[in-house]
């Protein structure tokens, strides 16, 4: 287990470093940061001045290593647009996004696991068909449109939930449903297919032949194995939601990391955008690492692989 842990940890570190290089190069080559600060129609002389002042005229690898060294010293850079340290910005916006992401994953779990289980237990029945066609249609719904429909229905027509903002718990209900719904098709399919595989395996037949059955068979024997891949997918989805709630946050005017990202892009604030890309990627890497370790802990066969 320790060897596995070390190997996976080293890989994660390597991936995080590579991703930071990729993000840095992409945002400094495809985008001219001096131009982004100066604005679209700025004087060329001013752009040159900014380029020298901020050091964008130096070779890219020098800039990267300076960025990385600062990062290791806990200096996340300075935002041109917000006139604040980027680290402070990210820290102040993170809790809202964390709450939203956790609630969204909760929504996903509550909808997709029972639905997937029912669909697998009653394969080819009406429930199974409803579940599968819900998954197919849910995949085709534009997420931001679903959000707007929810606002029209639940905030304007019936006035159950507030339209936008992030002050109270009630503000988070619609956004977390919208964000969580986007993962339902994938997780539901995975639950259903995993459970179908397990239910047709030999050890379940053996357990049945010994007279063991019903809900206890399902929970104690079948679900434990069927949910292994679901756990890792959920961790990955959580990683994505922590970085991918840009749309949901902008629709519901939630002042989290996604909205910070959108406004920083529109404001031409490359240092903030760059750090956000890196932080999101790092979150994702850590979540996948945790998912792998969790799976290796739950399933000893994986540790050898």
């Amino acid at each position, binding site marked *: 287990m320790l060897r596995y842990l070390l190997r996976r940890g080293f890989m994660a570190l390597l991936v995080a470093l*590579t991703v930071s290089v990729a993000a840095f190069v992409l945002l400094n080559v495809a985008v001219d940061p001096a131009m*982004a600060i100066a604005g679209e129609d700025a004087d060329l002389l001013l752009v040159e001045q900014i380029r020298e002042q901020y050091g964008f005229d130096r070779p890219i690898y020098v800039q990267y290593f300076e960025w990385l060294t600062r990062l290791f010293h806990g200096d996340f850079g300075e935002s041109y647009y917000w006139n604040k340290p980027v680290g402070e910005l990210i820290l102040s916006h993170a809790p809202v996004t964390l709450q939203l992401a956790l609630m969204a994953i909760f929504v996903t779990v509550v909808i997709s696991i029972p639905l997937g289980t029912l669909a697998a237990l009653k394969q080819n029945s009406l429930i199974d068909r409803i579940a599968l066609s819900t998954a197919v249609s849910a995949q085709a719904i534009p997420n*931001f449109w679903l959000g707007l429909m929810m606002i029209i229905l639940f905030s304007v027509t019936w006035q159950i939930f507030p339209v936008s903002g992030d002050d109270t718990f009630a503000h988070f209900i619609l956004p977390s449903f919208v964000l969580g719904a986007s993962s339902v098709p994938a997780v539901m399919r995975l639950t259903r297919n995993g459970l179908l595989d397990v239910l047709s395996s030999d050890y379940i037949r053996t357990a049945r032949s010994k007279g063991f059955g019903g809900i206890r068979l399902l929970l104690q024997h079948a679900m434990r194995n069927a949910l292994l891949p679901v756990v890792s997918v959920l961790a990955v989805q959580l990683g994505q939601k922590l970085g991918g709630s840009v749309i949901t946050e902008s629709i519901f005017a939630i002042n989290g990391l996604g909205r910070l990202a959108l406004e920083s892009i529109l404001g031409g604030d490359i240092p903030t955008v760059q750090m956000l890309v890196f932080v999101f990627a790092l979150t994702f890497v850590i979540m996948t690492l945790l998912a792998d370790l969790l799976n290796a802990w739950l399933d000893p066969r994986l540790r050898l692989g």
Partner: protein
Amino acid sequence: MSSTELPISGTPLTLETETVTELTPRQLLIRRIKGHKGLIIGFTVIIGLIIVGIFAPMFAPHDPYEQILSKRLIPPVWSPGGTTEYLLGTDHLGRDYLSRLIYGTRISLMIGYGAATVGLFIGVSMGICAGYFGGRVDQLISYILTCQLSLPGLLLTMTLVFFIGPSVYVVIGVIGVLHWTYYLVVSRSAAMQIRQMDYIAAAKSIGCSKFHIIRKEILPNLMSQIIVIFTLEVGFAILAESALSFLGIGIQAPTPSWGLMIAEGKVAMFFQPWLVIIPGAALFVLVLATNLMGDGIRDVTAPENRN
């Protein structure tokens, strides 16, 4: 002992066999296609929308850009106050909504198919290399895949499109370049299986070059799987474009894009919800049809892989 006369030339002794007409693979495929409702529905809708997109000027009753401010926010024909002149009503600038919707088909289809094609070239070429060569090449490409998966896709797409300058081609390029992992995973594992086939060994033994084997032996056998992924990626790219345009980072006004129409309709959403409902429903129908077609092609070409 009675001798029974054996009928030698009487009724001929025939084995009563069921007349099994051997179906060719092609006939079998056509039979499966005909039996697959989702595929037929999806395919029909897509073909219909492609025709609407290509011949948009003929279908659109009005100019999609013409603003008549005196005819602002006319509701659709089925709600009170609607007129048959503007079947889906008009938007906040008095532009005919149906015409804008029809022209918007072009944007969605162009970006969907364009971006999925860009991704196809990147993903499939990397996937085949990884699967066919294996070893170090495979390790390197799998590592690139892991890194790509960790990058926040939507945020990077938004950033690059915004700073490079939003236009149809930039949106196609950026979505395509950032979205090829699915192609890679599928073509890699398929190429790994095909590599072990006898006909590959045969091609090697008569001295075919690696490039020839990849192009003439492996690629044709991957086609059906690639088409399935392509179709599903078209749906993804359409949704990605609409999300970008909705956030104001993709297609710019006054070009009619469905995502942008939703963003513009959002302003008047509370008293004229149809402005938001209609383009969203159009997106839903297009993407649903695309996905149905993709799922259908998968079921029809590889029925054993159905889950």
